[in-house]
């Protein structure tokens, strides 16, 4: 036991003390923050391509009715003739020329857009949308329908979901919980998927290194192969856990920091409203969104999510890391040959990943329920379901089966490892691994 502890310590410290670990641990949140920042920047419009479009309306139906968009500006040129202006619009500073012919209201046709550049999807949809709106309005007038009455008919329903996984929903945030659950489910599933792959391969590489450097031979004369394997798997688990606790801690700090900042932002926005309407309105919006996000996240079973995340992260890791260790022990010299051997491990992982997407759409479909209980896929799929609320018996069964699965794979992997770690000069096939695993003593 003491020796296993020594191995765990070495595996843990040798990785945590590495510069690359420290850099990665600090860099990943920064990258994520930068990623989100760029998203916000793009959405709030730091990146605008304004287009000025000349419109020649021969039908006379649209004048003053085409609303300018945020980046699209229409200018009506009543007196120009399309044939001559086609050659001139560019020189007069327009990006394009929209020509609306005289047309039949029941069969609108013949609209032409002249430009050197093809329209992007956004502007295209915007322009056709505007045109459609105007035509629809005209048709309504023609049909004698009152527009205001029509607006009164439109409904806006949201569902209250009392008793569902997320508890205590207030009327205000109805509906957001579903989005939040989806987002949290995705994030957890993604993280577990990448952790399993990244740390699993780390285990595999570590084992293969010990084997090719003949360290295994020196160690095996002092400790049991099983102790070596467990030491490595647990040590690297510690590394992953450390990294995640740091990330969770940083995440919570940012979350609460923004939370305490939000009211003051809103306050500031209120004070400055008269002076700088445009800028502070943005601040107010952000502050509002922020407190909304906080409210919604607090609707989710946060403690349950964090606890389950840690369990499924560790459980999934132990299950897969043991298998990766077994493969690492079978590799000889050349790491590339490990690929054929890792396929049976990565395949279930990738398939679980795909099922996870499905489970987020339909958290209680039979497939999702089964896969969230079955040990090989449960770490990913269950994590995706938890924000939506999972019956306790399913969760209990899933946890129990995962523990059984872990013990089983560690037992099998241990047998493969013991044979593989000292086997040199031989290319190992999957069939052979199977034989090692089920060989009697």
């Amino acid at each position, binding site marked *: 036991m003491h020796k296993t502890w020594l191995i765990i310590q070495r595996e843990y410290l*040798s990785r945590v003390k590495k510069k690359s670990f420290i850099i990665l641990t600090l860099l990943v949140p920064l990258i994520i923050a930068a990623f989100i920042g760029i998203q916000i920047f793009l959405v709030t419009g730091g990146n605008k391509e304004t287009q000025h479009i000349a419109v020649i309306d021969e039908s006379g139906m649209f004048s003053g009715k085409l609303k300018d968009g945020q980046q699209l500006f229409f200018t009506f040129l009543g007196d120009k003739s399309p044939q001559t202006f086609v050659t001139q619009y560019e020189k007069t500073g327009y990006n394009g020329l929209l020509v609306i012919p005289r047309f039949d209201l029941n069969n609108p046709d013949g609209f032409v857009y002249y430009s050197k550049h093809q329209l992007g999807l956004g502007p295209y949809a915007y322009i056709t949308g505007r045109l459609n709106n105007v035509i629809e309005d005209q048709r309504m007038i023609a049909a004698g329908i009152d527009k205001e009455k029509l607006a009164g008919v439109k409904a806006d329903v949201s569902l209250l979901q009392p008793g569902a996984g997320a508890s205590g929903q207030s009327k205000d945030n109805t509906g957001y919980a579903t989005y939040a659950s989806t987002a949290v489910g995705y994030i957890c599933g993604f993280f577990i998927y990448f952790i399993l792959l990244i740390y699993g391969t780390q285990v595999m590489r570590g084992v293969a290194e010990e084997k090719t*450097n*003949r*360290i295994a*031979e020196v160690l095996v*004369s002092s400790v049991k192969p099983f102790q070596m394997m467990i030491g490595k798997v647990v040590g690297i688990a510690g590394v992953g856990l450390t990294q995640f606790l740091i990330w969770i801690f940083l995440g919570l700090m940012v979350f609460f920091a923004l939370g305490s900042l939000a009211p003051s932002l809103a306050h500031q926005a209120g004070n400055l409203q008269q002076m700088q309407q445009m800028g502070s309105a943005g601040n107010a919006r952000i502050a509002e969104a922020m407190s909304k996000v906080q409210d919604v996240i607090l609707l989710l079973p946060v403690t349950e999510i964090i606890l389950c995340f840690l369990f499924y992260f560790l459980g999934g890791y132990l299950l897969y890391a043991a298998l990766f260790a077994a493969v690492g022990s079978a590799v000889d010299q050349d790491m590339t040959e490990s690929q054929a051997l890792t396929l049976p491990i990565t395949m279930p992982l990738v398939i679980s990943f795909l099922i996870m997407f499905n489970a987020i759409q339909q958290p209680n479909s039979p497939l999702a329920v089964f896969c969230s209980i079955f040990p090989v896929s449960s770490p990913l799929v269950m994590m995706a379901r938890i924000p939506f609320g999972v019956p306790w018996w399913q969760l209990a069964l899933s946890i129990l089966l995962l523990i059984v699965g872990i013990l089983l794979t560690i037992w099998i992997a241990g047998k493969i490892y013991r044979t593989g770690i000292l086997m040199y000069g031989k290319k190992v096939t999957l069939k052979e691994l199977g034989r090692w695993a089920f060989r009697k003593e």
Partner: protein
Amino acid sequence: MAKNILSVRHLKKYFEAHKAVDDISFDISKGNIFGLLGPNGAGKTTLLRMITGIFYPDEGEILFNGAPFIATKDISRIGYMPEERGLYKKMKIGEQILYLAQLRGMSYTEARQKALFWVKKFELYSWWNKKVGDLSKGMQQKVQFISTILHEPHLLILDEPFSGLDPINTNIIKEEIFDLAKKGTTIIFSTHRMEQVEEICRNIVLVNKGRKILDGPIDQIKQDFKKHEFSVTLAEIPEEIPGRETGSFLIEKVQGQTLIIKLKEGKSNNEVLQYFMQKGYTIHNFREILPSINEVFIECVEATSREDESQFIQQAVA
């Protein structure tokens, strides 16, 4: 206390298709430097792995200090240095030595104290905080050697300890081996470098294709394999030619003043001396040519290969 620190009895280890170790027995007495010889693939490493508890033998038994060998208990008394170096490239030298020592059951403080002693002795002290990967091969070898002997094993097993070492470092390690033997450590020295065997070992076991083909004290083996050849150096260049036969010997070679002769069966050395004295030569030097272990090795290995071949042919014919 038993006289032999290690006894191996009818040891067998078969891998799927081939017999890696096939019925090998030998004894190693305490404080001996014992050579385990054999060509590549002879089964040396498999044998050593059974002695170090890495493999279980399929059959046979290993006695350590007279009692059946129990890996978990006895392993702390054994130091094993495998042929290919087993060190973490990215670990610092000091950490590495201390880590391995603790895995072998030493306390941290004891390990540190002894590690510092050896590191200073091998002039590695300034490298204590350097990574193993930054060291030359010779220095890595010394680190490996230190970590093998740090826990003061009673039985030290060295698999090709000098491969990749320059003459100076070879000598440093060699001196340590002699020193340890003097202090009572038994050493098993596995190699296919014969000149080192003659220099270092007192006893050898020669294995080939999983079988023991020879064992015993080196001096004895040389006697057993001698071909009754003598070298005679005379004061002047003799008028003898190769191929001439006398009543008691055959002249095989003439190199200047030195003749190589082969004694006929049943004849004594004195008859040779008499022959030259009668002819009036002054004899400067007269000595028996003993075979080198290298020659013995080649002869034995070739003999067993021939045996196998003829067996194979017989089987094929049958």
